[in-house]
């Protein structure tokens, strides 16, 4: 059987069309998984061609949740797009806010007060923790462990969402960050509540570890499945936990040191086997690193304003130019590319969504695997359709 695998040491180039010949006699079975498949967490379709149980071709089809976000933003003031960014990756709205605020701040040369930077780090890492927790829960649920790890993850997520609501007024559609700081200041009571929640997070990470990491069924289902070679991952532009599980040391928090990330002491976990189990394990380890950052940030947070008093909320016109602001969102590199022509609206507004770009290697990972494992591989990519389709 001629398999255009990505498991050889010398890939010929990632854009070569994946080819797999069917094995022996018989016809291929074409199946449309989705758009209403329970494993796709939204409206997403995978057109798979099967030879028996093995996947011969896989074509991802998306666009069912397209909401015209980029074009809408071009007709709207800079401030007006901020609440819409909450609706990209609705599991982690605060990091979306942050990336957009960073891009506009780069465009206008706006400074951010120190307390606001600390608050952004705290909220960003809380977001990363709850995203990784629920993404592990969803991954395990797709293996057939119906609910228990997911419910444990959601129990923890609920506490973090309560913190978000206490500070921003909403659990998910937060609309919190502004160009030049944050909208409201965190009270001492909120910081105490956050410290209390963060003190409970290591216990949850240990619990997940004991519950899942050594489980023989999980290991049998995930180890050696959906291997993504580092060369292919780099060439395809994959970022985030997916890339680090493929053994590439690339974390924008370390590379760019945006905000104040270079002040914190944390490590970047890397995978060694490049399979689904590694992607699960990387997320678990990143949760632990997030807790480290949270503890340091909550200890050091200074007093002061959270908003630059000179910052303008509305009616500002950035000088003609362009800016690209990117952050390490929980799912990968989230970037906003803005072009200003000197008007009150961006001339061009483009999002680099990690979910969409990580999804492009789905076929390469799934070829030759069983159809039951395709669901698992798809789950390990960790996507949100709101961000894929925008």
């Amino acid at each position, binding site marked *: 059987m001629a398999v255009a695998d990505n498991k050889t040491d010398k890939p010929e180039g990632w854009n070569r069309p994946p080819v797999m010949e069917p094995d022996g006699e018989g016809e291929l079975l074409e199946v449309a998984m989705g758009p209403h498949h329970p494993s796709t967490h939204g409206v997403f379709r995978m057109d798979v061609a099967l030879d028996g149980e093995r996947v011969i071709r896989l074509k991802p089809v998306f666009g069912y949740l397209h909401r015209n976000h980029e074009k809408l933003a071009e007709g709207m003031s800079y401030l007006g797009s901020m609440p819409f960014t909450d609706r990209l990756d609705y599991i982690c709205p605060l990091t979306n806010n942050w990336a957009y605020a960073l891009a506009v701040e780069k465009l206008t040369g706006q400074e951010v007060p120190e307390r606001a930077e600390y608050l952004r780090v705290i909220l960003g890492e809380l977001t990363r923790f709850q995203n990784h927790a629920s993404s592990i829960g969803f991954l395990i649920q797709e293996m057939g462990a119906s609910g228990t790890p997911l419910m444990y993850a959601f129990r923890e997520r609920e506490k973090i969402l309560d913190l978000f609501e206490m500070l921003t007024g909403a659990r998910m559609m937060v*609309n919190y960050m502004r160009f030049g700081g944050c909208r409201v200041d965190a009270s001492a009571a909120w910081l105490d509540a956050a410290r209390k929640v963060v003190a409970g997070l290591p216990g949850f990470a240990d619990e997940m570890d004991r519950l899942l990491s050594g*489980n023989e*069924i999980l290991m049998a289902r995930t180890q050696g499945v959906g291997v993504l070679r580092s060369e292919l991952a780099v060439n395809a532009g994959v970022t985030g936990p997916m890339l680090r599980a493929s053994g590439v040391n690339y974390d924008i928090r370390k590379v760019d040191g945006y905000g104040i990330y270079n002040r914190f002491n944390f490590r970047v976990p890397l995978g060694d086997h490049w399979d689904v189990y590694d992607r699960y394990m990387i997320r678990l380890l990143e949760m632990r690193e997030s807790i480290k950052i949270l503890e340091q940030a909550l200890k050091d947070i200074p007093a002061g304003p959270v908003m630059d008093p000179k910052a303008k909320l509305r009616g500002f016109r950035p000088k003609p130019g362009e800016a690209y602001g990117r952050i390490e969102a929980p799912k990968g590199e989230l970037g906003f590319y803005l072009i200003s022509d000197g008007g009150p609206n961006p001339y061009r507004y483009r999002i680099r969504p990690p979910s969409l770009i990580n999804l492009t290697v789905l076929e390469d990972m799934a070829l030759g695997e069983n159809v039951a494992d395709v669901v698992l591989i798809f789950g390990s990519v960790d996507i949100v359709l709101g961000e894929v389709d925008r």
Partner: protein
Amino acid sequence: MLGEGILKGMAETAKNFAGSFISAERLTTVQYPEERIAPIEATRDFPFLVYDGADWEAGLRCVACQICEKECPPKCIYIEKSADKKPDFTGKLQFYPAKFDIDISVCMSCQICVEVCPFEAIKMDTEFELSTADRFGGLLYDRKQLAKSNEHYRKIHPTEAAQVDARLAEGKAKADTKTTNAAIAAAVKGAEIPARTPAGGD
């Protein structure tokens, strides 16, 4: 030993199962609508218009400047400016909204209208039980439905309302000093003019 990991995991679930009967913080289910959890102060859902005093129509703080209408990202606010003017809380003559509608089926609770309002006239409510059988007219709120008293605002967001009240009091004090100063200046000027005339005559 094969199966050790599974047994370890099951010990964890057993601990959680037993814990859900004992630990008070784990007993989280609330029988809505008979029981309700305590609301979080910062919670927001849909905007309302603040009025001072007893009469909602006379006390509306809104001066129909239409900034919120312009800035609203989903464009759910419709305002018509009045032809005549009414005095606001500082006594200055201002326009008022002859029509102020919010389509809450379009509103996405982003509170940008609150942030851009220079008159502290629009604030976020916490009322969420708004279901109605009429999906068009029933969800298009006019200014009478939107008007709520400052006491209501103080009740739902006490910290924020205290800050707003302080800011308004400061603004009013400034306006009062300005009028007083203007009156004094006018009086002084009026007094000076006759005083100067004889001096100029010399």
